[in-house]
C-alpha cells in the first residue's frame, strides 16, 4: 500500500516537474524534437533510397541458355539446381516460343509476319534468374557456366556492380550521417542538461538533507525525463506525417518518366520503423539525461 502511494506520488511529482520548470521542459522537448526531426528526415530519405535500389536489384536478372536439343528433364533439373542456390530469389522459365513472341514484340513488330510460323531462335528457351543480392552475381554466373547442359549465361556486370556499389555507398553514408547526428544530439542535450543542473542542484540537496533516498530523489526526475522524451517524439513525427506524402507526390509528379524506377515507401512503412525507433531514442535520451543530471548531485 505504501509503495503504491509512493509510486503515484512519484508519478504526480514527475508530471508536476514538467510544469514547475516549464522553460527547461520546453527547451528539452525542443532539443529532442530537433534531433528526432533530423533523424526522421534522414531515415525517410535513406529508407526510400535503399528501397529504390532494392527494387532495381530485384529487376536485375541472369539469363541461362541450354545446349541444343537438351531434354526437358535436364532443363527441369537445371532449374532445380539454380533454385537451390542461396543467392537466388526466384527463377522464371521462358520457352523458345515465348522468347520468340517477346522478341517479335520488342524488335520486329509488323515485319515479323515474314517469318510465318518459323521460330528462328528455336534454341532460345532459358531461365531468367533473379537474385536477392546482386553483389553475388559473379559467383552465380561462374557456377552456372560450369553446369552440364548450360550453353551460355548472359548477365549485365555493369548494372550489378553499379547497384551493389550504390548499396554500399548508401550504407557508409548512412553510418557517417547517423554518427554526426548522434554527436550533434549529444552536444545539444548535454547543454540542455547543464541548464537543468543549476535548476535542480538546490532542490536535490534539500531532499537529501531531509533524508530522502537516492531512489526517492531520482524517480520524479527520471519520470520527468521520460515524459520529455515522449513529448519530444510527437512534433517531428507529426511533421513528417504531413510533409512526407506531399514530398512523395511532388517527386512522383516531377519525375513521372522514371515512375518504373522510382518507387517510394508508404508513410505506414516508414512509420512502422520510425515510431518505435524515435520513441526508443526519445525515451533513452530523456532517461539518460535526467539520470545523469541527478547523479551529479545525489551524493550529498
Amino acid at each position, binding site marked *: 500500500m505504501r509503495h503504491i*502511494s509512493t509510486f503515484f506520488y512519484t508519478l504526480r511529482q514527475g508530471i508536476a516537474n514538467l510544469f514547475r*520548470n516549464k522553460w527547461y521542459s520546453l527547451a528539452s522537448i525542443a532539443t529532442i524534437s530537433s534531433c528526432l526531426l533530423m533523424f526522421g528526415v534522414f531515415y525517410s530519405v535513406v529508407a526510400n533510397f535503399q528501397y529504390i535500389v532494392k527494387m532495381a536489384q530485384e529487376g536485375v536478372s541472369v539469363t541461362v541458355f541450354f545446349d541444343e536439343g537438351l531434354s526437358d528433364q535436364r532443363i527441369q533439373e537445371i532449374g532445380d539446381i539454380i533454385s537451390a542456390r542461396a543467392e537466388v530469389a526466384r527463377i522464371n522459365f521462358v520457352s523458345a516460343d515465348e522468347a520468340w513472341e517477346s522478341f517479335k514484340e520488342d524488335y520486329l513488330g509488323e515485319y515479323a509476319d515474314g517469318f510465318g510460323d518459323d521460330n528462328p531462335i528455336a534454341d532460345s528457351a532459358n531461365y531468367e534468374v533473379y537474385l536477392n543480392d546482386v553483389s553475388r552475381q559473379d559467383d552465380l554466373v561462374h557456377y552456372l557456366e560450369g553446369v552440364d547442359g548450360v550453353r551460355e549465361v548472359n548477365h549485365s556486370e555493369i548494372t550489378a556492380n553499379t547497384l551493389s556499389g550504390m548499396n554500399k555507398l548508401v550504407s557508409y553514408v548512412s553510418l557517417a550521417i547517423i554518427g554526426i547526428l548522434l554527436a550533434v544530439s549529444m552536444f545539444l542535450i548535454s547543454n540542455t542538461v547543464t541548464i537543468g543542473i543549476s535548476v535542480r542542484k*538546490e532542490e536535490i540537496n*534539500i531532499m*537529501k*538533507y*531531509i*533524508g530522502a*533516498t537516492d531512489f*526517492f530523489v531520482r524517480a520524479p526526475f527520471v519520470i520527468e525525463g521520460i515524459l520529455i522524451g515522449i513529448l519530444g517524439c510527437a512534433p517531428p513525427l507529426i511533421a513528417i506525417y504531413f510533409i512526407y506524402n506531399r514530398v512523395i507526390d511532388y517527386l512522383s509528379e516531377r519525375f513521372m518518366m522514371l515512375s518504373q524506377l522510382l518507387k517510394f515507401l508508404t508513410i505506414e512503412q516508414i512509420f512502422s520503423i520510425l515510431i518505435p525507433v524515435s520513441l526508443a531514442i526519445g525515451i533513452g535520451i530523456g532517461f539518460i539525461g535526467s539520470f545523469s543530471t541527478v547523479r551529479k548531485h545525489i551524493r550529498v
Partner: protein
Amino acid sequence: MITLDHVSKTYSTGAPALNDISLHIDPGEFVFIVGDSGSGKSTLIKLLLRELLPSSGQITVNGIDVGKLKHRQIPKYRRTLGVVFQDFRLLRDRNVYDNVAFAQRIIQTPGREIKKNVPSMLSTVGLAGKYKAKPKELSGGEQQRVALARALVNKPPILLADEPTGNLDPNNSWEIMKLFEEINATGTTVVVVTHNREIVNAMKKRVIAMNKGVIISDEEEGTYIDEAY
C-alpha cells in the same frame, strides 16, 4: 545521544577545521554551539549530518557510528535528525503544506496520516492559515517556521539548527527560540549553532564555545563571553 571522541577534520585544501574535539550531549539537552566565523561550528554540523566524514576520531549519534555509515544508510540516519538552516532551504516551487508533507512522504507515511500530521504541525508553529502559500509569499520568520515544521513533523529525537536566526529580525528570532524551547520541553534534544549573543545570554542554556577548531569552553547555563575570543 551525541558523542564526539577526539574528532578532527582537515579539508582537502589542507586547512584544519576541527582539531581533536570531544564532547557529549545527553538526550533532552538544549545546547548552544557558539563561535565566530571559521571557528568550526558549521563543520561540526556537517559532520553530524554526515555531509562530511571526520579525518580522525569517532562520532556517535543515537548509538550509530556516523563515520561508518554506508551511502545507502545515510537517508535513514538523517531521518533521525530534524535540521533547520539559516537560509531555510525550502522547496521554492511548492507550497507550505507540500514542503512539510515532503518530509513525511520520504518516510512513506500513509496519505491519511499526512493529512492529519501536517496541519497539526503547522498549527504548532503558528502557520495553520498559510498552508497554501508559496515560500516567496512568506516573511523570513514564517519561512523559518515552515522549515521548523518540516524538521519536526517526523518527530525526530534530535533537532540541529545551523544559525536559525541569522536571517531574522530580533522579534522573529525570539519567536523561533521560544518554539525551540517548547520542542525541547517535549524531550527533543536541541543543538543550536549561533552567534546571536543576546539570545544565548538570555536563555541560560549549556553553551559550547569554539575558536579555530577547538572547544574553548563548555558551560551549563553559560553565556556568550567576548573574552573567550
